[in-house]
């Protein structure tokens, strides 16, 4: 009887490819961090990316967090009204929006908007030899292209999420006060008085990590792209999918570390 080894062969290739890709990403990550903390710094490029990531993503983040806050208020009221615990709505909205929804929703929205754009832009630069041209002009592509984007992502995501936190709570407030007829002062008191520093710390920590993940994977996938338009398209898809998955995984890991450690 002849053994069919093709399955083992394929499995081996998958495992090898996984480790190869992980190693490549690890090296890319190390190089990125090194170039983020060593001069020269391209401050104009950082500022341009901060505007692109922060200012232009604000509408989409504001809308998603606003409606997330509104939905959470409605659903919480539906659940807790059976136990006559309507006063908990403001607290649940605060916890859900600040700790989870604002960072995750903002992360996913920015991954779709910015991660894809970065992968497409850098991928196009790769396949049209613009990245090689940078090197021949004595400019390190990591310093000029990658570091400004990653630094801007790490700085701007927390700012976006902070704004998202406020807007999400406003969404809950609008539903609580105007639809469910809660007392406005009581709602705000319940939100503010129970607000813990850890809520804000966790929100900002998650946002910073998500900003790093989105920009790193956007740049990495663009930088590695090859094979013309199809390669750039693949890089864009990979950037969004991989950063979205990693955001959800790291959201769990960070929640464990920050609240259950």
């Amino acid at each position, binding site marked *: 009887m002849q053994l069919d080894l093709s399955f083992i062969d394929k499995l081996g290739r998958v495992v090898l490819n996984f480790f190869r890709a992980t190693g490549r990403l690890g090296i890319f990550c190390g190089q990125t961090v090194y170039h983020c903390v060593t001069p020269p710094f391209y401050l104009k490029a950082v500022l341009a990316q901060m505007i692109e990531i922060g200012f232009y993503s604000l509408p989409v983040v504001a809308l998603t967090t606003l409606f997330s806050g509104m939905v959470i208020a409605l659903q919480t009221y539906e659940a807790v009204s059976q136990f006559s615990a309507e006063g908990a709505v403001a607290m649940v909205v605060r916890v859900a929006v600040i700790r989870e929804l604002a960072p995750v929703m903002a992360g996913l929205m920015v991954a779709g908007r910015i991660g894809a754009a970065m992968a497409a832009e850098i991928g196009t630069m790769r396949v049209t030899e613009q990245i090689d041209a940078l090197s021949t002009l004595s400019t390190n592509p990591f310093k*000029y292209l990658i570091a400004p984007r990653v630094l801007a992502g790490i700085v701007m995501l927390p700012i976006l999420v902070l704004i998202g936190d406020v807007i999400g709570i406003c969404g809950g407030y609008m539903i609580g006060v105007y639809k469910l007829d809660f007392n406005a002062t009581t709602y705000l008191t319940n939100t503010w008085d129970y607000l813990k520093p850890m809520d804000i710390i966790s929100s900002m920590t998650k946002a910073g990590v998500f900003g790093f993940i989105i920009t790193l994977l956007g740049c990495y996938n663009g930088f590695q792209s090859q094979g013309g338009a199809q390669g750039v398209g693949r890089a864009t898809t990979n950037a969004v999918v991989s950063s979205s998955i990693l955001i959800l995984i790291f959201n769990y890991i960070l929640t464990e570390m920050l609240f259950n450690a």
Partner: protein
Amino acid sequence: MTNTKSVTPKIRMTDVCKAFGKKKVLNHLNLDVYPGESLVVIGGSGTGKSVTIKCILGLLEPEAGQIEIDGKNVLELSGKERSETMAQFGMLFQNAALFDSLSVWENVAFSLLQNQHMSRSEARKIAIKKLAQVGLKSDVADVYPADLSGGMRKRVGLARAIATNPAVIFFDEPTTGLDPIMSDVINDLIKDTVKNLGATALTITHDMNSARKIADRIAMLYEGKIIWVGTVDELDKTYNPYVRQFVAGSAKGPIQMEVKVEK
């Protein structure tokens, strides 16, 4: 042209090997480029011409061999020393590789702005001067690369390559995709700018008209090795069957193109 016997080569490649997976692209390649000369490397598609230039520029790392610039093996230099050596290079890419997000003058002045930290007004003046050297008027300075024709993009690419007055200029297929008249214009520009700068030039092309016009010496690359080197006059007199077939552009001869047929 310099007396090649008595001087240290500006660029010397010794036994350089580079493979991609199982495919050996450069197979113990040896090549000397002397100061002030214009050397053109000819060869078919996929023979390793671009890889040769990319290895010299440090865009690709060869697996074996030495690449010397002014007698120093650049593969052994530290990052900073290597960057300083590479700073004397200029490069015109096949499709010009202009930065889409920057205007024409910002492309030309890129190195002046980013590395020499020149003021924008001064860098702009130099960029416009360089654009004039390649036959472009100042009114294209504020245009973006997407609005330029192929020939104009090549000229802007050339202006960018000479912006810092490099000692060595590389040309990757400078006439590919251009009509014959524009090709001749680019060839003249390359010849004039290299002569005016007193630079060393290394060009890769499969355009024989371009090679004849630009070259002091021509080298033929085949299967990852330099198989013939000579002057333009010697090119027409050689009995090397590979060179003769390539110059004649004939399908019949020792060079067989790989054609994969699905079975």
